[in-house]
């Protein structure tokens, strides 16, 4: 079997509060193959961004703890690398696209300077080569007049354009893995479609593995082949997108899908809400974290944690899947 582009093995993240260990990510494992896009979906506080930060090694040093059996990029375990080696791979082998391009871009440098800087940091090269690569990258993300964009400052660009600039920074070194953290959440409908289109195009072009983090299942469906649904630090269901949307097997996934309002010409189905609330990280219920809100819960759901029921590690982590 081919080596997966990204393999995360038993990753956990926690922080300490008043001497108590509060879990944020709870023993999750997954793989993404080259050329595949996998969505990591969940509501705020479920731990999806923390997962990305842990993979990238970007968690603040104090207050957070991370443990894992391994994080492999193309077979190479990066989790045991020291800080400077870890930093060296950021941007080169694995890159991230953030949600708020306005704050992620440095306002005092031009787009060209920022994209070029990423390339230069990892590959060096003369001015000409860096500039050429930078312009090519800007074109590849969809800018029709790369020269103008390269000379522009972030504040001169619209939200969508800034996001494309961020994508350029993330792809200039042609990384094997791209992590996109809510890249379209702050954008309007038409810009969102444009950005997703560009991401899909780039992903196919570079055969990158994409981890697409979002709270929006609809957006994930447009770009990802597979999807993982996360709740309170654990992966509840892991399957391909079409299967999830046609018949979600975990009660939480199904509940989440029925919360989403649909556009329809005829009378739309009313949304239904999942009863109760997401528990806070410091107050997680024993057993399956979703059990207190689950209409299908039985006694063992409150006592023990269900494992994913699929042979390959996917499927629904549920004792009574739908």
């Amino acid at each position, binding site marked *: 079997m081919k080596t997966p582009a990204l393999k995360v093995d038993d990753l956990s993240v926690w922080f300490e509060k008043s001497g108590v260990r509060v879990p944020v990510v709870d023993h999750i494992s997954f793989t993404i193959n080259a050329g595949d896009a996998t969505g990591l979906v969940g509501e*705020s506080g479920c731990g999806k961004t923390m997962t990305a930060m842990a993979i990238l090694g970007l968690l603040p040093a104090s207050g957070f703890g991370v443990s894992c059996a391994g994080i492999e990029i193309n077979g190479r375990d990066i989790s045991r690398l020291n800080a400077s080696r870890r930093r060296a791979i950021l941007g080169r082998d694995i890159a991230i696209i953030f949600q708020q391009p306005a704050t992620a871009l440095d306002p005092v440098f031009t787009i060209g300077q920022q994209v070029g800087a990423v390339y230069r940091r990892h590959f060096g090269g003369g001015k000409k080569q860096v500039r050429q690569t930078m312009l090519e990258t800007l074109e590849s993300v969809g800018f029709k007049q790369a020269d103008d964009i390269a000379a522009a400052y972030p504040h001169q660009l*619209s939200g969508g354009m800034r996001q494309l600039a961020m994508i350029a920074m993330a792809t200039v070194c042609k990384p094997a893995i791209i992590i996109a953290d809510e890249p379209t959440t702050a954008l309007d*409908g*038409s810009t969102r*479609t444009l950005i997703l289109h560009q991401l899909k195009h780039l992903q196919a072009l570079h055969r990158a593995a994409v981890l697409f983090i979002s709270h*929006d299942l609809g957006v994930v469906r447009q770009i990802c082949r597979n999807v993982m649904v996360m709740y309170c630090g654990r992966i509840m269901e892991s399957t391909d997108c079409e299967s999830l949307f046609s018949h979600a097997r975990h009660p939480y996934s199904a509940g989440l899908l*029925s919360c989403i309002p649909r556009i329809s010409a005829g*009378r739309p189905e009313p949304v239904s*809400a999942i009863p109760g609330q997401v528990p806070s990280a410091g107050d997680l219920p024993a057993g399956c974290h979703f059990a207190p809100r689950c209409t299908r819960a039985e006694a063992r759901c409150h006592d023990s944690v269900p494992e994913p029921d699929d042979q390959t590690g996917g499927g629904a982590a549920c004792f009574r899947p739908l």
Partner: protein
Amino acid sequence: MTMPGHIGNAPLLEVRNLSLTFHKGKQPAVDRVSFSIKAGSTVGLVGASGAGKSSVARAILQLVKPDSGEILFKGKNIGLMDPRALKTARQSIQMVFQDPSVSLSPKRTVEQTLMEPLQHFEIGDAESRPEKALQILRTVGLDQSAMHRYPHQFSSGQQQRIAIARALVTDPELLIADEAVASLDVSIQAQILLLIQKLQTELGITFLFISHDLAVIRQIASEVAVLYRGQLLEQSPADRFFSQPAHPYSKTLLSFAKGETPPGWTGDKWHLHRGQRPVDEPSACVFAAFCPDKLPKCESTEPAMFSIESGNQHVTGPQCVKCHLYDEVNSHDH
């Protein structure tokens, strides 16, 4: 979403020719917008961000002074009201903001937040007010234990419920929700939408629901009004809007909302070249540059509001569209 047949005929709120410019010399944020809201209905005001939706809301609440135009509440011009009449009107028009973590006063308890409108508008007396506050709190799904806590001690869904409670405590007739569910997670959004539906059916509250999310609008609106760059381009009943949107811009909005790129869409040129918008002539249709169904007339003459059905010229109405394609005179030429 309900479509009651017994909606009152006189509009509860009427906006006539409202214009608002923030920076002199620049494009107006709100450009001669006219629409009306019938009692008991929910008008969804949609459009991209920056289209002017929030500005319209703020003008209705008199938070900003419009440059021109009138806003009539129950037939009376809000802009001309004396302070006492304005206060009474404000009691009946309340707003729910987008982000409850900043729209609730952080150093005030829930009780203080709910009591403030009651005290300010002199509703009830010292004895009845706490009861009223508690009753409203229960309506939005919270209880007594919330009263003495501060906003930051609640989840965002609960915070938005408190914000809604604050808006409800004066028994308003019109509730303006400005992207009230946009910051919420989808499962909490569903809970709040259900709450809004309950308020629509049980309390008969009229809503002006501002949102860029058409799926949300589909759930709760009885009518849809579309804003684009400050201008109102269409107002239709929701069922009609979602099956047969009239204005070409509405069609593109709907396409994008479904995740599809509308055929013939040339908009991406603008998105990629922000500083180089095609120049609009002042009298042309504001959407002409990107319209897939553009007529030659659209670039030279600004369209009037036409009735979707009859093609007659209209100022406001239940079904109107600002587009030359619906000009009954025009239609004869094709």
